[in-house]
């Protein structure tokens, strides 16, 4: 196993583990606001780890840049949706 493979394994492994932890957090937490924290964490850190892994494998080619765009899109778009969801939850509580 080369250093390149090791870096890929670590990046993908940590990204998947972090994403699964966030999904587990959704079930464990009790309030919608706590669950939103985990939903935000799921779209903040793991996408950039995956993008980093793709960039290590492909360098700055089309797939690498696409993976980075996906990560940035998730990072930018998710807080807006979280805000809308929290607003609905707050309306529900009155």
């Amino acid at each position, binding site marked *: 196993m080369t250093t390149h*493979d090791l870096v*890929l*394994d670590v990046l*993908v*492994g940590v*990204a*998947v583990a972090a*994403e*699964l932890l*966030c*999904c*587990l957090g*959704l*079930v464990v937490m009790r309030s*919608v606001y706590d*669950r*939103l924290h*985990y*939903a935000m964490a*799921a*779209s903040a850190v*793991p*996408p950039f780890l*995956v*993008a980093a*892994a*793709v960039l290590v*494998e*492909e360098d700055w*080619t*089309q*797939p690498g840049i*696409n*993976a980075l*765009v*996906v990560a940035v*899109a*998730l990072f930018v*778009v*998710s807080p*807006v*949706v*979280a805000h*809308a*969801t929290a*607003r*609905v*939850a707050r*309306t*529900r509580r009155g």
Partner: protein
Amino acid sequence: MNVWLWGASALLLGVLPCGWLAVRASRVDALVGLQTAGTVVTLALVLLAEGFHRSSYMGVALVLPFLSFVGTLLIARFLGRHLL
């Protein structure tokens, strides 16, 4: 099987808690589950595109966050107006 495909397979397990939330919890909680499922599936598609060495598959992963964004916002608005 390479590391990308193993990662995608493991990542898809993350849809199960989101599905559980959609079935068992309240509607707002289900919305959070839907949002997270969108993120999980997007990342799984990136890993699958890389695992199969098909850069064209990445287009689906590129479009999904935006479609998921619009869909979730629409549902949030609908929930706020009609279902609460």
